[in-house]
């Protein structure tokens, strides 16, 4: 029976054949016996656009593969199956004094997904992307006799480098060995600093290079001299404190799909104003990792907030030299369109040091946005933003994309042809079919 699956942005809604992977031995079986064209590994379904969808094909659900295969708590090295979520990993490693080396904005992603998207976080300026901390992984491929193959920075290096950021197309990841980061407390010392312009943001980011984590929330309705104003946030893990793990049970659930008029120019303006004026906007003090890294995880199904038609995410990165000019142009276009983004996040990235061949990150400025899907009006705005990104030789993050043109993808990721040649022929995704079209 085909089932309809939506991605996290809820814009795309396709029929899929779902197959539960209950044991590692099911992976190769599924690849061999797939009857519906192509397959794609599917974890928590948190990618926003269509990179985790495979319309009319098969999705191999990996979330039952969540065993620990090895753990060295002296060295902080764990070998875990790919379907384990980062939240489940934290439940185990935090009490032992270890944390994720790189953490995205949600803990509800699988380790396999973290590798496939070579995810980054608020500490990119210090440590690069997730791929830097992958010591080894095992990969099932339909076209290899000795599958699964173990890939490390020394062994099967080409396949290792390709798999980090290959969007799940280079094979199905069975397990990953990760180097964790030592912590002595589950709390962070955080400083929130309201700032008034893009220049101030860059100044703050530059002078905060020694802080482990930094990021800024941007008010998309600011204009003129105040363009890019927002709240800059920087943090370090506390040296003292307790190792309290997050609560894995009680969470609120967004109860229904909110009518789409709920998020409009006026309501976002009010939200932005309140967000800037609230007392927490200038907060300096200690915060638990759960509220610092994963504020939205507190609400189940927050994606339903954007109405029935869902929403688009958009994250671009532009090189350091031209970053400011590009972001200024983008913010102007958004302000003029009146379609403000509710959650706009700005970050100054350091050089990308991970081995991932298809990495999104580079040294420069990245801006993450989200827009409720209002049909043509929204896609027109996205087109306009993309044109600016393209002009400044920037690129877009596939995990968040549901929209970029094949031409833009191919010019900004010229190494895509290598992935196209070396991907597992049994694997594909809606995203890949969209962006690998001949242009």
């Amino acid at each position, binding site marked *: 029976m085909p089932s309809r699956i939506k991605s996290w942005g809820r814009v795309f809604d396709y029929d899929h054949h779902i197959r539960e992977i209950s044991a590692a031995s099911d992976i190769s079986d599924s690849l061999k016996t797939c009857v519906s064209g192509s397959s794609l590994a599917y974890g928590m379904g948190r990618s926003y656009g269509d990179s985790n969808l495979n319309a009319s094909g098969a999705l191999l659900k990996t979330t*039952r593969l969540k*065993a620990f295969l090895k753990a060295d708590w002296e060295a902080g090295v764990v070998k875990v199956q790919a379907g384990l979520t980062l939240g489940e990993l934290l439940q185990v490693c935090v009490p032992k004094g270890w944390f994720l080396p790189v953490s995205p904005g949600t803990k509800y992603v699988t380790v396999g997904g973290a590798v496939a998207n070579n995810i980054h976080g608020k500490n990119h300026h210090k440590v690069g992307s997730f791929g830097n901390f992958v010591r080894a992984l095992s990969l099932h491929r339909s076209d290899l006799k000795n599958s699964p193959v173990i890939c490390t920075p020394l062994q099967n290096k080409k396949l290792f480098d390709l798999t980090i950021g290959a969007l799940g197309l280079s094979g199905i990841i069975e397990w990953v060995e990760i180097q964790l980061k030592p912590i002595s407390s589950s709390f962070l010392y955080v400083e929130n600093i309201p700032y008034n312009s893009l220049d101030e943001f860059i100044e703050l980011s530059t002078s905060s290079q020694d802080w482990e984590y930094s990021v800024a929330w941007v008010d998309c309705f600011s204009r003129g001299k105040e363009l890019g104003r927002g709240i800059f946030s920087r943090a370090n893990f506390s040296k003292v404190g307790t190792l309290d793990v997050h609560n894995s049970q009680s969470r609120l659930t967004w109860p229904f799909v909110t009518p789409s008029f709920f998020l409009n120019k006026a309501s976002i303006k009010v939200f932005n104003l309140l967000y800037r004026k609230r007392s927490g906007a200038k907060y300096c003090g200690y915060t638990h990792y759960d509220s610092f890294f994963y504020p939205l995880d507190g609400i189940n199904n927050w994606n339903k907030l954007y109405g029935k038609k869902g929403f688009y995410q958009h994250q671009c990165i532009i090189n350091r030299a031209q970053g400011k000019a590009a972001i200024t142009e983008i913010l102007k276009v958004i302000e003029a369109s009146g379609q403000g983004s509710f959650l706009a996040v700005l970050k100054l990235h350091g050089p990308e040091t991970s081995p991932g061949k298809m990495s999104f990150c580079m040294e420069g400025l990245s801006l993450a946005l989200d827009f409720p899907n209002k049909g043509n009006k929204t896609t027109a705005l996205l087109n306009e933003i993309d044109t600016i990104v393209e002009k400044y030789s920037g690129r877009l993050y596939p995990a968040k994309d549901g929209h970029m043109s094949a031409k833009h993808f191919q010019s900004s990721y010229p190494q895509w042809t290598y992935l196209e040649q070396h991907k597992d022929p049994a694997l594909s995704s809606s995203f890949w079919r969209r962006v690998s079209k001949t242009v």
Partner: protein
Amino acid sequence: MKHENPTVLVLGGTSAVAMAYARNAAKAEENIVLVGRNKSKLEANVVDLKARGAKSVQSYVCDLGDSTEVEAHWSALLTLAGHVDRVLLAYGVLGEQSESQDSANILRRSLEINFVSTALWSERAFQYFRQHGSGQITVIGSVAGDRGRQSNYHYGAAKGALAIFMDGMAHRAAKLKEAKLKILLIKPGFIDTPMTDHLEKGGPLWASPEKIAAIIRKSERRGKRVVYAPWFWRFILMIIRYLPFFVFKRSSL
């Protein structure tokens, strides 16, 4: 005797709910003994639980459904574990009723696994805990045991009999003066595990093994006797139980 790190005996140590329960025990740094038939799966689970922080993890391979061997296995397990504080009985077979309808052997085997052997294991654990002064026996039953339905009364009858058995055991435990025994029967509804992969899934009635495992541990701590998991099944089953037969017979439940 009080032990700093309790020891929990998990019968059916390869089932998804049992494993979720054992993972919580590992997090609490308990001693765990896993019992089941599939040696390689048990061994993988041992590695997983050790990595997650269990004080100690051991495995024991045997056919839990073989009711003639319960005493022998119990002694061996006790030698292995030293002592036991809690027992979770989580094994069972769902089976296809169409098959057990056509085969007396399959039906006999299903009743043997789901009821006879479970009753004997519980009784043996009761005897042990009674001697030692305290203990917890938790048995996973099923909402299917609340009313016989044409589609799965073979499974349901065993689970229903088990409910009466545990009820009686709880009564007996309450009357004990020399020992403090806690007896718990969990009645889950639909759980998303490999055991139910042949059914169509999705929707609010389906629960994850992790959710059921959390309910089990919470109910043990609170000293509960019978718990539907999740809670709403209690009301669904109340309606199903009280439906008059002339209405019930028209359904294809």
